[in-house]
């Protein structure tokens, strides 16, 4: 996360509006870069046991980011999307670096409290994530078995 602006934002827990299961415990309220009228929630860590992909990648009219919808694993309703590959303009503008989004109509946000139980938990309070290693580029070796 680049700027101090994001560190002051609340950490919210996000529940599915349809079935009330917990989708994510570290959400951030944000606006869509491509259309700042649209409010949504984003998170940094892939929520892998609460949601899963549906369907295929697509792009919208507003920008060329490659997206893929995710749905709540409990009820199967679409709750948001994942940015599979950001487009260059979005990547270069001010952003919170999150690639997992939840539609505001699909989730019920709950502000989380810090350890004392008195104050709101802020993103600045969360420990930094380790940088994930880039994926191994072992491309070839496919051709080995051909002849």
């Amino acid at each position, binding site marked *: 996360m680049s700027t101090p602006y994001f560190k002051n934002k609340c950490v919210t827990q996000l529940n599915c509006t349809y079935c009330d299961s917990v989708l994510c415990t570290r959400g951030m309220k944000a606006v869509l870069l491509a259309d700042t009228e649209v409010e949504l929630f984003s998170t940094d860590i892939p929520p892998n046991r609460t949601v899963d992909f549906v369907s295929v990648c697509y792009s919208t009219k507003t920008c060329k980011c490659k997206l893929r919808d995710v749905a709540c694993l*409990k009820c*199967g309703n679409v709750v948001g999307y994942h940015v599979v590959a950001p487009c260059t303009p979005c990547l270069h503008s001010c952003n919170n670096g999150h690639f997992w989004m939840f539609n505001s109509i699909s989730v019920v946000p709950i502000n989380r409290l810090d350890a004392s139980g008195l104050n709101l938990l802020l993103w600045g309070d969360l420990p930094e994530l380790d940088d994930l290693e880039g994926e191994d580029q072992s491309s070839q070796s496919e051709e080995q078995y051909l002849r």
Partner: protein
Amino acid sequence: MRINKMAAVPENRALSYGVFKWSSYSSTYLPENILVDKPNDQSSRWSSESNYPPQYLILKLERPAIVQSITFGKYEKTHVCNLKKFKVFGGMSEENMTELLSSGLKNDYNKETFTLKHKIEEQMFPCRFIKIVPLMSWGPSFNFSIWYIELHGIEEPGVVQPCLNWYSKYREQEAIRLCLKHFRQHNYTEAFESLQKKTRVALEHALLTELHDRLVLRGDFQACEELIDRAVRDGLFNQYISQQEYKPRWSQIIPKSSKGDGDDNRPGMRGGHQMVIDVQTETVYLFGGWDGTQDLADFWAYSVCENQWTCISRDTEKESGPSARSCHKMCMDSQRRQIYTLGRYLDSSVRNSQSLRSDFYRYDIDGNTWTLLSEDTAADGGPKLVFDHQMCMDSEKHMIYAFGGRILTCNGAADDSRGSEPQFSGLYAYDCAAATWRLLREDSCNAGPEDVQSRIGHCMLFHSRNRCLYVFGGQRSKTYLNDFFSYDVDGDHVEIISDGTKKDSGMVPMTGFTQRATIDPELSEIHVLSGLSKDKDKREENVRNSFWIYDIARNSWSCVYKNDQAVKENPAKSLQEEEPCPRFAHQLVYDELHKVHYLFGGNPGKSCSPKMRLDDFWSLKLCRPSKEYLLRHCRYLIRKYRFEEKAQTEPLSALKYLQNDLSLTVDHSDPDETKEFQLLPSALFKSSSDFIPLGFSDVDQTYAQRTQLFDTLVNFFPDSMTPPKGNLVDLITL
């Protein structure tokens, strides 16, 4: 022609039902919700709590009815919880249900109706319970949801009651037959005759009653053999034979050599070559490949009848044909006696805009001439240069279908260290007469019903009778694809046969094992030979080949053999029991007229000698037991039993019988049969049987053992002739 007993067609209407039982449900998605159709309410559905089996809903009809169809409602939008695969069962009681339907829903917002099985051989049967079993949802990790269910059928008592009566009668009749069988097994002669006289129910076909008489009652073994002999001749064992599994029989082909030198008159070692077969003349054609160091351009023909290779050309390029290549694909037009070749693999060091043109050649067998059909099929609207693709010939309509393969590209900009994502080629059709290409399906990762995902290392076969392409397996970069779909070439329609779930593991050939497949359009079977795993870690020294058969009509796979042992007990094993070592980059072709496969060469994947290639040539026949074998086997069983019976009372006479008559029925060249035969004399030293067959404690031992032999022999006859398979005593549980 069926006699229609009804005056008018009985009315088919919606049947009332209630939800009787369910496996689970999650949150507010209760089972009862399926009674209500509210497509715009996402909560108006039943949703299972997880997708771990068993998941089901059992519906109970208000009245027994003939259930003719089931309708599934949907949500207004596509939804991952929709059932991609499900089964429906039905019956008069919860415990006793039969499968009525196996199908899947489209992932859309339209209601879908399916016909349910409601007849047994033209006789309608009623159901009281309907069980819906979801097997797979459109999103594999998601739960199962059903939005709305309607059942339609006939519930008019005037129609249902007679069916109920028939069903009742049918069950009673089967119960009587079980009793008859039980009485006879236990020699309750009076009870047996009395029941039979009173009910006039036949336990079995008259021929089998005769067999029972001769074998069990009279012990006239000679007469038994005569009866079996006549039965086999009359073809009564044919149904049994058709249900037996195939046994593979490999045999290495050592061709005749025309000249003394032996070196130049058969194809050298190679991998990545191509073979096609002309079944009319029983000729196998082989072209190109990689010998470990370089591409090859030699072209050969093997005549099965002459058992000889002929070199058609040492270098096809010199005869206006293709340059040396490997990983190309060939197909044979047996009607016009022409061979086509497309694609090849090029090492990155030799790729440039010139060499990356996808040339397309045709060879005319009778004229012995090559024709360049296109310098670059991509320029003609066809595929770009690809390797590890698949190509099939449709001789009837004179079309060629090419699918998949990876597109060869020059390496792009140096600063993008990732390199571009691999691109896969779509499904193309080539009209041979018009010499034009058409793209039928682009490579697509969409999950639409007509979308097709391209790949490499897959199998594609053309079924000339039902005019469909069958595609399965393959790989996209690191992902192994397990799906199986067909493409109707005339209707331009994709049908998904299986989308490859983990639940099928062990029941279908696994991908990633360099499969080679062939098709038999007459038997409607696909044969798959699996060899080495592409994954070096999975490659153990003792992994052997496995051979699978897919029955297209029954949509079922069966494994013919799966040999994982390297243990060679007998070093001097006969050639028949050897099989080619597992390998990749080999070629397998099938002669569907003579039912023989041929395999040549390949790469054995020896990490210690990576340049080594094979040049062995094998034939494979899949054998089922023949009539003659079964006849001998039955004779053996009868005589073996006779010997054992004799051994109790006249051991010397029994020994002589063993050495003469019984020995005649044994194939002494078969090690298993010989071994069993050698153990038989131990019966001479037993005072009485070691155990009494379960359920026969009150019967004379001889009678019991003869009955067992009778039961064994009866299995070879068609089910319509035999007594019921079950036994009354087996219904008793502790």
